[in-house]
């Protein structure tokens, strides 16, 4: 029983991070109809930026939590600038191009960012300095650290804030209008370019937070961490229904739970034949199942055939 609860806790922590990243995918898809495959790399650069700042300050007298907060606050503007630049430089010139062109460009941007990160930060794994409190609490025989509690609470708070922004503000209403029909939104006086930039800025800020959370949770960051994380968050977005914000959150949390429970029990289920390092398989197994049986996702509307 305690393994079960432990895996649920791990799954929720992982799932909150997936959800934050999945929101970035789904927001951009909702407005541009583009899978921004470079989004995972924005998470990676957020993680490495935060970690670099954290390492610089690790030996100072500042408390560990404050240092991590400073690292996070440094990563957010860096990622926002990066997301803004990616859209301006790589996607905007292709706004009217066939849909395959920006998709391939996104993969290209992803490779470029990964290589740049490798040149800048090296090929090595960067360890997160042990400055965060290791305290935690026990729930039903399972353990959750205070850091993990903060990760989940912060993710929930950010997602609640995002939902308020999208559903209750003038900018959010313009974003929803643009997602539905950019031409008509333009007729209503919405500057589409501003809305698209805002979408990338918001998504990238979430990516920075998620990147910092990943490196704090796993105590590690490296230049190719964005690829697999991005694919999984994309899977989460598809699971929830791409383009649908609550869907991305639900998909993220579900995927985290599926992975965590899967990794926890796969050894028992296969008599030790397959171990927990098969964790990554679950995400893609889920992706295949969703694409075959419910391509519109759990909360998505029926996706029209758009070439």
């Amino acid at each position, binding site marked *: 029983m305690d393994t079960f609860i432990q895996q649920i806790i791990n799954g929720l922590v992982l799932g909150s991070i997936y959800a934050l990243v999945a929101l970035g995918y789904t927001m951009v898809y909702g407005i541009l109809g583009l899978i921004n495959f470079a989004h995972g790399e924005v998470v990676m650069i957020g993680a490495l930026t935060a970690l670099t700042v954290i390492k610089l300050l690790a030996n100072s007298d500042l408390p560990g939590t404050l240092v991590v907060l400073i690292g996070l606050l440094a990563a957010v503007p860096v990622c926002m600038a990066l997301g803004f630049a990616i859209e301006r430089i790589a996607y905007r010139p292709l706004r009217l191009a066939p849909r395959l062109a920006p998709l391939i460009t996104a993969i290209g941007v992803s490779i470029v960012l990964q290589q740049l990160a490798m040149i800048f930060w090296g090929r090595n794994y960067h360890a997160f300095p042990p400055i965060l409190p290791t305290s935690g609490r026990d729930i039903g025989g399972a353990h959750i650290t205070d850091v993990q509690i903060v990760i989940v609470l912060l993710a929930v708070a950010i997602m609640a804030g995002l939902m308020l922004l999208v559903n209750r503000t003038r900018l959010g*209403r313009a974003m929803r209008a643009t997602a*539905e029909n950019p031409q008509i939104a333009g007729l*209503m*006086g919405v500057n589409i370019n501003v809305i698209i930039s805002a979408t990338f800025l918001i998504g990238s800020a979430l990516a920075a937070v998620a990147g910092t959370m990943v490196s704090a949770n796993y105590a590690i960051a490296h230049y190719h961490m964005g690829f697999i994380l991005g694919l999984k968050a994309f899977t989460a977005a598809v699971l929830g229904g791409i383009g649908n914000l609550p869907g991305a959150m639900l998909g993220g949390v579900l995927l985290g739970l599926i992975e965590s429970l899967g990794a926890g029990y796969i050894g028992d289920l296969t008599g030790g034949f397959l171990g927990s390092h098969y964790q990554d398989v679950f995400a893609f197994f889920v992706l295949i199942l969703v694409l075959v049986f419910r391509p519109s996702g759990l909360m998505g509307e029926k996706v029209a055939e758009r070439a």
Partner: protein
Amino acid sequence: MSAPMLEVRDLHVSYGGIAAVKGIGFEVAAGEMVCLIGANGAGKTTTLKALARLLPAQGAIHYAGHSILHRPVHALIGDGMTLVPEGRGVFARLTVAENLGMGAYCRDNRAEIAADLDRVYGLLPRLKERAPQLAGTLSGGEQQMLAIGRALMSRPKLLLLDEPSMGLAPLMVQKVFEVIRSVAAQGVTILLVEQNARLALSVASRGYVMESGTIALSDSGPALLANPKVREAYLGE
């Protein structure tokens, strides 16, 4: 005589490599309701789209004394020129109230916006009943009312209406045109594109008849209604 509110000279618009509008000219004076009639494919909607800057065009378009040929799409509503597009174009996943709010997107004065909302609800009481509903759940006629109401929320000086009767039941068409008439009576200048020529000519003070990208005829509404050529080609007599 003062300059017209909208003046179009030698307008050319190509659509997918085909010349859809071939050097037309017309004008709309302040306070007028002018209609553009013609068969399907004559270039009426293309003309309106070019005016709203949704399609690139050559020639001259002067609105309120200034050329708008290179204005960005999103600037025109702030200039007072608002298009109610063909097929209504309401935001189906936004509520009726949010759709109306989108019409006032460019405006800041909350008190004035609230007053205009009351006015729109007064003119279109059906929208008030349906305010919290998603616009996609409205009937076609209600969506057309919403599209007009949304445009009114921008406080337009010049309203461009593209086929407001399209796809509506006859009774609903009458209602929509009653609304258009009362909007015009409030002093809003209107350029109306319609396939229903009889209806359009009966409400408009002047009309232009488009034929394959050119303007074939222009006259006052009653004169066009009485014109034998118009009666034969567009009124089915």
